[in-house]
């Protein structure tokens, strides 16, 4: 018996040691190398809309056909599992090139899963990226990722319904509705509509997921609050400004259509939709000239909006840096950026493609969102002029977004705002304290 017990104990010890070793060796960081610029390049991306998938598959096929040195092999993982897949894959097993959701980048840098790309991607490509694009991909002065497109967020409304209800609406960033004006607009519109609703906040996307943080944390910042400041959430995410913003949000809920069929605006059940750029093509087709694009409500400190989207980085252990960089150069050229933004309606994240774009440039239907993106900033340096705020560039972001979005979902179903936000603040601060502020 004694012997067997000992054997059992040593199995445990060995496993534990192996586990520790595995967790030590899986990182390391900075082990990427350029390679000779030929051979296979493995690429991972999320499997999103069919049109986006087709644009990416075409880009890969065209790249492989355009030259004979490099062969790109694309793997698509369903969007819902994509980030978990990267998380559960050790750095050694990650591909040469991988797509990342912008705000998760810092946590993957922290886990040494992505490599700096500035020595592999050409300088022209970097210079051609928009400021917001470079900001999203830069941590501590090092560039880790570049995106093909940015994102636009605001209100999409049925102008005819607003006019019919006698609700006047803003025509520029500066004239955004105040919180009170927005609420009274909702009251009026709901009373006019047989559905009893006035607003669609894309509840069908799930407020408790990334949509919640992307779309509604700008409200905090517009009120003068924020998600986090100086690595501290207490007094910020649950400060009086943030609480006021979320109380206003809660007061809109009676007018919100559940929108389970994703058609509330199109079918006229609501007059206003909390709206991401990807909705524009469908709305525009359904409403035609009646569709108006408005800024999000101004909670006091000027309207704020979201920015950032999927971006491209490289696995930290890639031995194909040069070839991977060549592929990223190709992916970020005008032709491919245009193909992708045509497929998903997003604002291009390169200067040359943005200049050629007809939607977001001056005079285009989404000019307002173009202007918003032109006035961008990071979450830790919000100025009065800034409109689009990137989600916080910290490795603690997964905790921040999970806590905020959960609180938001609870607030939407009627929970007390202060206690929901304070709960989030406590959890975020605990996580930052445990991990030495994710430095």
């Amino acid at each position, binding site marked *: 018996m004694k012997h067997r017990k000992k054997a059992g104990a040593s199995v445990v010890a060995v496993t534990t040691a192996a586990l520790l070793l595995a967790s030590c060796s899986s990182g390391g960081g900075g082990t990427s190398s350029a390679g000779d610029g030929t051979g296979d390049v493995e690429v991972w991306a999320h499997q999103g809309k069919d049109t986006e998938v087709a644009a990416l598959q075409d880009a890969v096929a065209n790249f492989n056909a355009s030259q004979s040195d490099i062969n790109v092999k694309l793997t698509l993982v369903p969007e819902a599992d994509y980030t978990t897949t990267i998380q559960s894959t050790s750095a050694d097993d990650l591909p040469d090139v991988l797509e990342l959701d912008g705000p998760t980048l810092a946590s993957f840098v922290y886990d040494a899963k992505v490599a700096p790309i500035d020595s592999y991607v050409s300088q022209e490509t970097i210079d051609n990226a928009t400021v917001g694009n470079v900001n999203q991909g830069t941590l501590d002065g090092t560039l880790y990722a570049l995106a093909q497109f940015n994102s636009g967020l605001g209100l999409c409304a049925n102008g005819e319904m607003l006019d019919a209800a006698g609700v006047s609406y803003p025509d520029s960033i500066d004239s955004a509705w105040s919180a009170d004006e927005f609420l009274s607009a909702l009251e009026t519109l709901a009373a006019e509509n047989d559905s009893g609703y006035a607003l669609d906040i894309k509840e069908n996307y799930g407020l*408790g997921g990334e949509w919640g943080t992307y779309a509604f944390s700008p409200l905090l910042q517009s009120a003068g609050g924020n998600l986090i400041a100086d690595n501290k959430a207490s007094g910020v995410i649950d400060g009086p400004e943030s609480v006021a913003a979320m109380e206003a949000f809660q007061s809109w809920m009676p007018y919100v259509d559940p929108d*389970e*069929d994703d058609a509330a605006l199109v079918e006229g059940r609501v007059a206003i939709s909390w709206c991401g750029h990807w909705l524009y093509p469908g709305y525009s087709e359904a409403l035609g000239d009646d569709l108006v694009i408005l800024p999000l409500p101004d909670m006091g400190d000027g309207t704020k909006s979201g920015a950032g989207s999927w971006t491209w980085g490289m696995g930290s252990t890639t031995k194909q840096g040069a070839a991977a960089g060549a592929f990223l150069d190709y992916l970020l050229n005008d032709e491919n950026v245009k193909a992708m933004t045509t497929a998903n309606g997003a604002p291009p994240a390169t200067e040359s493609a943005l200049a050629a774009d007809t939607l977001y440039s001056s005079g285009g239907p989404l000019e307002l969102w173009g202007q918003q993106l032109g006035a961008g900033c990071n979450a830790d340096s919000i100025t009065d002029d800034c409109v689009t705020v990137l989600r916080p560039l910290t490795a603690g972001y997964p905790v921040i977004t999970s806590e905020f979005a959960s609180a938001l979902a*609870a607030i939407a179903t009627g929970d007390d705002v202060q206690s929901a936000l304070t709960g989030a603040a406590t959890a975020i601060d605990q996580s930052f304290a445990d991990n030495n502020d994710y430095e």
Partner: protein
Amino acid sequence: MSNPTAESPRRRSLRWNRRELPGVAMATPGIIGLLVFVAIPFLVAIFLSFHNAQLNSPRAPNYIGITQYTRLFADAQFWRALGNNLTFAAVVIPVQTAIALGLAMLVNQRLRGISVFRALFFLPVIFPMALVAVIWRLILARSEGGLLNSLVHFVTFGQVGPQDWLGNSATALPSIILLSIWQGVGFQMIILLAGLQEIPQERYEAAQLDRANRWQQFLYVTLPGIRNTLIFVVLLTSILAFRVYDQVYILITSGGANRTATQTVLYQATTSVFDQNNLGRASAITVVFFAIVLGITVIQRRLVRQESEA
């Protein structure tokens, strides 16, 4: 369950003798599998629960003692999750067993085509829980287009408007209980049906001669006759009921279910690791979970044993 036959008295030598070897050999693959893929990982989870650790991080776990546990016990959300687990179990165990027994008695009649009905009641058991959650998310949808809302509207002649079944804290957990029972009850039904079929028909005939009515027959013939099967079903349902996770996870993340009102302990464990990358906390949660379910199982067994000795 009864005890295995008494252990062999010969235990002097350190190695198994030849007579014992076949037994050891036959049990070995299973035991090794369970040790390597369940017991050892679980020991690792216990180890991790005393650390601050992340998934696939370049930093080694650092020891923080029982901090994860003291935090858990001070966390209102954790208690809420545990409370939801207990409520779920407290409702599902008796209700699902009762419904299963009712259905089993219904399909235990000698009627033509009864096997079709048995199959229909068993059908949901073959549905993966992920799919069940998706179907019920549509049924419970909070718009007028939701199946249940539409039904309520129809039945009440439009007097009752659409309800947010999953979002409302009062109806969220009952909704999850409902769909869980729908999916699982067929399995218990079949086990109980087997128990019912083993009761000799003569006992019912004897009871009828004694002028026992149907309720008395149920109390004095049926229940004692399926006592052991019932105990098994209750134990089984308890273990499964505490494990509730898939449907909760899917409905909270993509079905608009009220998180506070529906989250369970295992939901907290997985979100801790996948949303917040807090492996230590997740491990502590699963260890506490194991301890609680173990405790409840032991108590249940004690009660059962005492009763059978009494």
